[in-house]
């Protein structure tokens, strides 16, 4: 698993005005599922197109299986792509679409037939071989696009928001299927999405991108529990960020204070020294709102809204500084602080994170 299959070294790219990519470095190991996560326009598709050879970088090298492929055209790289809009050939039926890569390589008819059948079985589309792409639903086209890209046994499969056009139910189902497929075949996946839930649920590692740079590269747990930057903390999930100063650090717990009050964070989440400035990040689902004060916490405000959210009651509290914080009502559905009443915010010190305070995996 340690063998590096793809290295991006100092990739830069600009299209006329402004940089699209500014110095991208990434090593992908064999068999890994790596997700490039970011909002639209962050450069993730450009990165993918550079790996595929559909775009040439202005600077930097692309090394695939130890070979520098930066200047090789797409047909000479052992990399295949599942395009965002699937890009199935509309004038060929499913079978011919899937067989295209083999036909290009001059593989014999018998071998092609066998391989195509195998691929269609893999994506459970064996009964659709003679259909035209226009006769397929979005999810079916998706499967064919995957079968076509996998047919030539690529060293690396690139997927550009492959589930973006599907409805939520189907997307969830396909997420699981894709993940299973990837583990079964052991092929390295580089996956693009703007959906953080998808990224967290499927990836071995996530590279969070912003404005043509990587903000953080790490395992889903790293990204979720130890966001390296404010941007990552805000992009992944919903959370509250509090800028505070460390007052004391003892017995594994640091006490911090901000204009709205005091709070506690476990020292395991970051080396905090008294006097330091730190940004504390608490996930909404880990933030608690209680009608009575909790030891170590003096963050208090006024309840402005109670709303039901998937099994819990979310209480929105306005702090004196004006910050609106969403928290789970500690007393459960029945015993929530009423709107207009005073609520105290707290959390398990071990479940808050310090932004940029923890060590995180690079490259």
């Amino acid at each position, binding site marked *: 698993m340690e063998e590096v299959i793809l290295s991006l070294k100092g990739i830069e790219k600009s299209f006329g005005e402004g940089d699209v990519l500014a110095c991208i470095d990434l090593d992908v190991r064999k068999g890994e599922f790596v997700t490039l996560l970011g909002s639209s326009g962050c450069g993730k598709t450009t990165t993918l197109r550079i790996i595929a050879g559909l775009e040439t970088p202005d600077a930097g090298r692309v090394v695939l299986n130890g070979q520098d492929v930066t200047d090789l055209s797409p*047909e000479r790289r052992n990399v295949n792509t599942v395009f965002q809009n699937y890009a199935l*050939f*509309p004038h060929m039926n499913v079978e011919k679409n899937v067989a295209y890569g083999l036909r290009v390589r001059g593989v014999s008819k018998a071998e092609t037939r066998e391989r195509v059948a195998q691929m269609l079985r893999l994506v459970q589309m064996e009964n659709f071989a003679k259909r035209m792409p226009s006769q397929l639903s979005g999810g079916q086209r998706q499967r064919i696009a995957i079968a076509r890209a996998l047919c030539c046994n690529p060293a690396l499969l690139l997927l550009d928001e492959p589930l973006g056009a599907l409805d939520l139910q189907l997307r969830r189902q396909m997420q699981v299927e894709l993940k299973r497929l990837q583990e079964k075949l052991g092929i390295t996946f580089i996956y693009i999405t703007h959906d953080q839930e998808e990224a967290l649920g499927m990836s071995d590692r996530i590279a969070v991108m912003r404005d043509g740079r990587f903000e953080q590269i790490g395992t889903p747990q790293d990204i979720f529990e130890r966001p390296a930057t404010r941007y990552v903390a805000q992009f992944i999930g919903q959370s509250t960020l509090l800028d505070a100063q460390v007052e004391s650090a003892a017995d594994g717990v640091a006490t911090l204070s901000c204009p709205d009050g005091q709070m506690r964070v476990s020292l395991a989440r970051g080396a905090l020294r008294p006097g330091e400035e730190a940004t504390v990040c608490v996930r909404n689902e880990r933030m608690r709102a209680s009608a009575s004060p909790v030891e170590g916490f003096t963050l208090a405000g006024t309840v402005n809204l109670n709303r039901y959210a998937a099994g819990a009651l979310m209480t929105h509290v306005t702090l004196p500084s004006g910050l609106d914080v969403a928290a789970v009502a500690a007393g459960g559905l029945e015993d929530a602080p009423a709107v207009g009443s005073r609520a105290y915010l707290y959390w398990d010190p071990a479940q808050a994170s310090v932004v940029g305070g923890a060590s995180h995996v690079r490259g």
Partner: protein
Amino acid sequence: MSGGKGAKMAGGRGTRLFIVPMAMVAVLFVAIPLCYVLVISFMTRGDNSTVQAIFTAENYRRLLDPNYARVFLNSMLLALWTTLLALLLGYPFGYCMARANRRWRALLMLLVIVPFWTNALVRLYGWKILLQANGPVNTVLRALGLIDQPLRMLGSYGSVLLAMVYCLIPFMILPCHSAVDKMDWSCVEAARDLGAKPWYAFLTVTLPLTLPGISAGCVLVFVPSLGLFFVSDLMGGSLMLVGNLIRDQLLKSRDWPFGAALSMLLMAVTVLIFGLYRRSGGKDLGVF
């Protein structure tokens, strides 16, 4: 989008009322003259270039004369060559135009459209001047020492073909351009991604996907070139084409019934071509 919806909503009586003036124009300028020609084609030629209202199929029987068949063949061959050359030149032009950046595309589009601002006849006189014995082309070739005697270009089949292609190539370029422009380019990228070299990707993906544009362009060039007889006359081609024949019957021999029969035959050929085009799945060109 909203316009189409509005028209649909108007539907029924509103739409029918709207059609009345159009139908009247069509009847007045298309149906009546056409019927007139059809009727005349079944009449007998009288003395002093008059038409006598005596029914006969003689005019159509005369069309079977091998001499006239040869004239039709001339026209067909010229139209075929014109279409082929226009395709070979027009497709790459339209392709490049569709793939060019915005500034280039605007410039190329202008180059295609500007000639329409001047009368075709006037532009053909321009070609005549260019190609004549003491014209710029011969002068340059002689100055370069490539030839001793001026080339006799006017009057050759090549010069007629050149002028035909020149007149009709925009009708090839525009549909080809629009077909390449509308094609989903990611299909070509997918082909390259799957290992196809550029030329192979073109043959297996781009070409089949832009075939509707090609066939539309071919019909739009072939059909008018059947009738463009004045180009050959102007370039001194001395080719006998269907158009010449019809003109001569109407204006020189004053045999209107036979001229009308010739016109109906040409019309039938055109209708046949459009029919084949539509049946093969060609899109509506707004002419049929």
